[in-house]
Every structure is written in structure tokens, then in C-alpha cells.
């Protein structure tokens, strides 16, 4: 069944925050771990993990949506 235009707008605008939110959370976790352990590299590691997490979520959503359309 084809989804109404408004529903599609809703679904695709929801993707817009996926990448920045995951990246930001990754950085914040790394920043606090750095502060806790007195290190200076964990923020980079978690920033990269955050970026990866964002992409992973995005890819999962795409796989799911393309699966729904039967393609």
C-alpha cells in the first residue's frame, strides 16, 4: 500500500537527526570518560563509534524501508 505524502514527509524528516544525534552522544560519552580517567584520546574513539552508530541506524532504517516496499 502506498503511504500518504505527509506520512512519507514525517518518516524522512525523522532521519535528519539520526546522524548528528549519534555523533554528539558518542563525543559526550568520550568526553566524560576522558575526564573520568584523565586521558586525552577516548573522545576521538567514541566520536568515531558515534559516527558508526549513526550510519548503522541509517542503514538499518533504509534496509527496513526498502524491505517494506518489496524491492
Amino acid at each position, binding site marked *: 500500500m502506498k503511504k500518504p505524502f*505527509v*506520512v512519507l*514527509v*514525517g*518518516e524522512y*524528516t*525523522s532521519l*535528519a*537527526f*539520526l546522524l*548528528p*544525534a*549519534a555523533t*554528539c*552522544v*558518542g563525543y559526550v*560519552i568520550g568526553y566524560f570518560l576522558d575526564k573520568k580517567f584523565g586521558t586525552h584520546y577516548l573522545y576521538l574513539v*567514541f566520536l568515531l*563509534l*558515534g559516527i*558508526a*552508530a*549513526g550510519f*548503522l*541506524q541509517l542503514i538499518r*532504517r533504509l534496509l527496513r524501508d526498502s524491505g517494506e516496499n518489496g524491492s
Partner: protein
Amino acid sequence: MPEHEIWLTRLFNDHLAGLGSWVLSLANANAENPARPWANFVTMQLLVAAIILVLFAVLRPRLSMDRPGTLQHVLEVIYSFLHSESRDNIGHEGPRFLPFVGTLFIFILFCNLIGIIPGFESPTQTPSVPAGCAILVFVYYNFMGFKQQGIFRYLAHFAGPVWWLAPFMIPIEIISHMARPLSLTIRLFANMLAGEQVTVVFLGLTYLVVPAVFMGLHVFVSFLQAYIFVLLTMMYLSETVPHEQHESH
């Protein structure tokens, strides 16, 4: 910066300041100004909750199969829309979550829309309100995951499909789960604040037609954001339903 008090908040602060301070003291918190503890977003949320309660209390005895009124029609449209969305996104188990998802949708929608009435302000344009809803969603879908799949099976999802990928997948999954309440909060809060501010800016420039256009846009965004919030909630919930049930819909 002390925020501008709307008339309802002033009423609460003038007459119920003691109650407000007492409630805050229960949570070990102190108001910025102890003499005026009520904030706009708190009183507006109470008003929205009261409106919803009154609306349903009025509607309940009037429900009719033969002669449904306008209000019944409107709410039936909302109900059937959420019902079909929950089936599409969660599977045949979906309608089981409808009481939670529906309450969230109605609450956020009313919170968004109430800002259009002059003299009121959307509680959702204060970050605490979307954050509260988002944290509730986070706790709820994780709780349902543990409840439906058991602690170990649900936690096993975090390790990914292949065991040797687990050291990478676990932190990635934790980050993506923690990003969910953040993105839900910022999306709703930023959209509502931006919608309101655009209207205010154009009202400062002209009273002719243009602000009305932006108010129309604000109504559209209010519906859209309430929908996106519950859509994402349903997607998160769909992950907690055991796979054999989810795939069989």
C-alpha cells in the same frame, strides 16, 4: 534570564506558590525564585492534561454508534490512523501498545497546538517537556524489551549478529540507544521553538496575512512532529517484539 510569565502562571504563582515549592522540595530541587516556583511549561502542561481529561469525560457518555458527533469522528480518525500505523510498524502485536502510543500522541499534539492560542505558550518549546516524553519512551521500550524477550535475549541484541564483532557492536549499540532520547528531544523542541519564533518575528514586521501563513505552517508542524515522535516510538517498540511475531505480520 527570568522568563515572561503568562497569565495562567501568574495565577498559579499568586495563589499556589506554597504548593509549587512543596512539590519541588519532594524532588530536592529549588526554584530560581522561591516566591514564584511555577514555570510556564508546568502550568501549560497541567492545562493540557486538564483539557484532555475534560474532553474525554465529555465525550465518553456521548459515544454513539448511530449518530456519532463531530468530536467522535475526529477522534475515531486519530484512533484508526494510529491503529493502522502500529500494525504497519510493529506488526500484529502493535495495537497492544496503542494505549501508550495514543496517549503520547494526543498529549504532544495538544501541547504543540495550544501555543497557537494567543495568551498561551507551547510547553513543548521548553526542552524539559520533550526530554521527559523521550526519557519515558526510552524507559518504556527497554522495559518492554526485557519483559517480552527476557533479560539475556534482549541484551544479546546489543552484541550484533556475529560474536567477534561484539566488542565493536556493544559500544555502537549503546551509543545509538542513548542517541534516541536526545534526537527525539531536540527534534520536537527545536521545531516547536522555531515555528513559534518565526511567527513572532513576522508579527513584529507586519500584521497582514504573512503571520497567518506561518501560523498555518505551525499547525502543520505540530501535527507532523507529534506524528514523528510516535512513529519513532513505534519503531523502537517494534525492535522489542520477539522476531518470529514481528516477521509474521
